[in-house]
């Protein structure tokens, strides 16, 4: 049961400063190249409210691009007492996240914490609070609205903020979110009828601003119908640069590799992001490359996100954040490919 509050706009920075006393505050900042980047906040006024998509996604604070896992000091011998677990136990609050990234978080939680529990993700997750803002400034590339992954979430968040102009409508859903509000309860007041009405207006306003309305369930049915021949995927794969950008920027991609690095005096076991788009991703003993052909990798990415994700995790492997549209130099991102598939289906007399 989520709790709802009103926060005066002038009090936001004070609230964040109090939270920052025992947690690292991370927020969206505009860097030198005018990109939106999430990083540690030193001056609260520098936070870019109403920002568009950050690159990379906030995923990197739970699943970092480079994550040391274990460390062993030399001399070389394995003894559990000498192996140090390098789990990151830093307490963080990540402010200014978009709703679609919070939706992605729910799926990441499912993936990393069910079955075998990933200890590094788990440790970061339980030490992190997310404060998301209802998006009222979507990119032209955004399409979360067709997937119900945004711009406004009914549940599954820690704290969600709606900007009502001169004040914030704030909702806390998780226990951690409620605790963060209650600890500063004098800053918040209870919402009145006019506040609910204004909130609903903002909701309608943000919905109206989306350029793209993509129905991925329809695309999934098109693929499952079996009418998409392999030469479609061949055409898609020919435009692939194999840069891996779609995977690295996707808030839902989870692939990694594990390597050992030697330093003087110690060895560290590290995990790094990896991408199934790379030829060597599934390389096997003796140099066998099961997915050597680019068409196999490209097709598999779409099948994974549109067919297998719903089968195994209950939702599409896409939250409509639009980052792959921004990133992909070949224009074969999720939105573009979905549009092509839809047009193919229309030509065949179906929709």
């Amino acid at each position: 049961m989520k709790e709802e509050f009103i926060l005066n706009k002038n009090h936001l920075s004070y609230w964040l400063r109090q939270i920052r006393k025992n947690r690292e505050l991370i927020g969206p900042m505009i860097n030198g190249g005018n990109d939106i980047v999430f990083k540690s906040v030193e001056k609260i006024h520098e936070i870019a409210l109403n920002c568009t998509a950050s690159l990379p996604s906030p995923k990197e604070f739970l699943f970092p691009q480079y994550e040391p896992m274990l460390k062993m000091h030399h001399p070389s011998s394995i003894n559990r007492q000498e192996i140090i677990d390098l789990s990151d136990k830093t307490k963080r609050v990540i402010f200014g996240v978009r709703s679609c990234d919070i939706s992605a978080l729910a799926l990441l939680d499912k993936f990393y914490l069910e079955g075998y529990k990933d200890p590094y993700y788990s440790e970061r997750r339980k030490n992190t609070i997310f404060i998301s803002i209802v998006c009222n400034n979507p990119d032209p590339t955004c399409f979360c609205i067709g997937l119900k992954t945004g711009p406004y979430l009914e549940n599954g968040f820690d704290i969600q903020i709606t900007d009502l102009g001169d004040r914030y409508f704030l909702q806390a859903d998780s226990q951690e979110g409620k605790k963060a509000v209650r600890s500063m309860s004098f800053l918040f007041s209870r919402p009145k009828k006019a506040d609910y009405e204004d909130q609903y207006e903002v909701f309608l306003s943000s919905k109206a601003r989306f350029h793209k309305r993509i129905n991925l369930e329809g695309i999934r049915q098109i693929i499952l119908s079996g009418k998409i021949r392999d030469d479609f995927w061949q055409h898609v794969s020919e435009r692939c640069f194999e840069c891996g950008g779609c995977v690295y920027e996707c808030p839902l991609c989870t692939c990694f590799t594990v390597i050992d690095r030697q330093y003087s005096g110690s060895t560290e076991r590290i995990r790094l992001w990896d991408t199934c788009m790379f030829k060597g991703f599934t390389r096997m003993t003796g140099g066998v490359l099961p997915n050597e052909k680019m068409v196999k990798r490209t097709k598999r990415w779409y099948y994974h996100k549109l067919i297998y994700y719903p089968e195994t995790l209950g939702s599409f492997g896409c939250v409509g954040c639009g980052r792959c549209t921004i990133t992909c130099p070949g224009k074969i991102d999720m939105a573009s490919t979905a549009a092509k598939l839809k047009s193919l289906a229309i030509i065949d007399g179906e929709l």
Partner: protein
Amino acid sequence: MKNHITNRKANSNIYLPLNGKIEEIKELTNDVRLLKIRTESAIDYKPGQFFMISVWGAGEVPISATSLYKGNTTIELCIRKTGIVTTAIHSLEVGQSIGIRGPFGNGFPLDIPRGKDVIIVAGGIGIAPLRPIIKYLINNKYELGRVTLLYGSRTPDEIIFKDETEQWKESGISVILTVDKGNDSYSGNVGFVTNLWHTVRADFKNAIAYICGPEVMIKAAMRDLFFFGMSDEKIITTLEAHMKCGVGKCGHCYTGPKYICTDGPVFSYKQIKEQSILM
């Protein structure tokens, strides 16, 4: 996802290797050695399950168990030198430490009905994951029908467990060896294992088969056995993949809609066909 977590209390970090000590090393061929490893505590495992074997500085590699669990603290692993980690393993000596994570995966189904014929098809290093099944069958031989092992390797010098194949014969298993290329001192079969079905004495319709080896051999054997009338649920193989985590997270062994490390590595022909696992 299936969940085969064991020794959870001992190790809540699924990526932290347990300490094992190399107790015995046997060089089986030029590039294959058999390690007997003693662990701090007994690790329960089933034939077909695999361990992530860890050498600090080199990394980890998935290796199937090649021994049968007897309630003790030793595990046998059969390792061919092919890459960075396996080369590092081949340079270890008796008494040195080695890291072990696992076991992972689903393991072979071994509930074989009484009187059933069993066919085992092995190619090269693929004999290693199948060896515990053979031991299991020998231990239960009075309950089974006819057991046949078809084992192919590239050359006579590369036949792994050559000494043990004699013992298996003495235990009543029909062992049929073949090589891709013979030499002057070799007088046995030459050719692929899939050309030797005529030597198998089995009621194919009511038999069960376990297959492990190169992918091309697996596919051919599965197709042939199915053609001979064997149920596709009873044609069972174990697949290889270059896992990094072993627990269904890193994505390297993802094939079709399945993770080989958690949904497999043991699959039936029925599963492989229905879920496009070997695309």
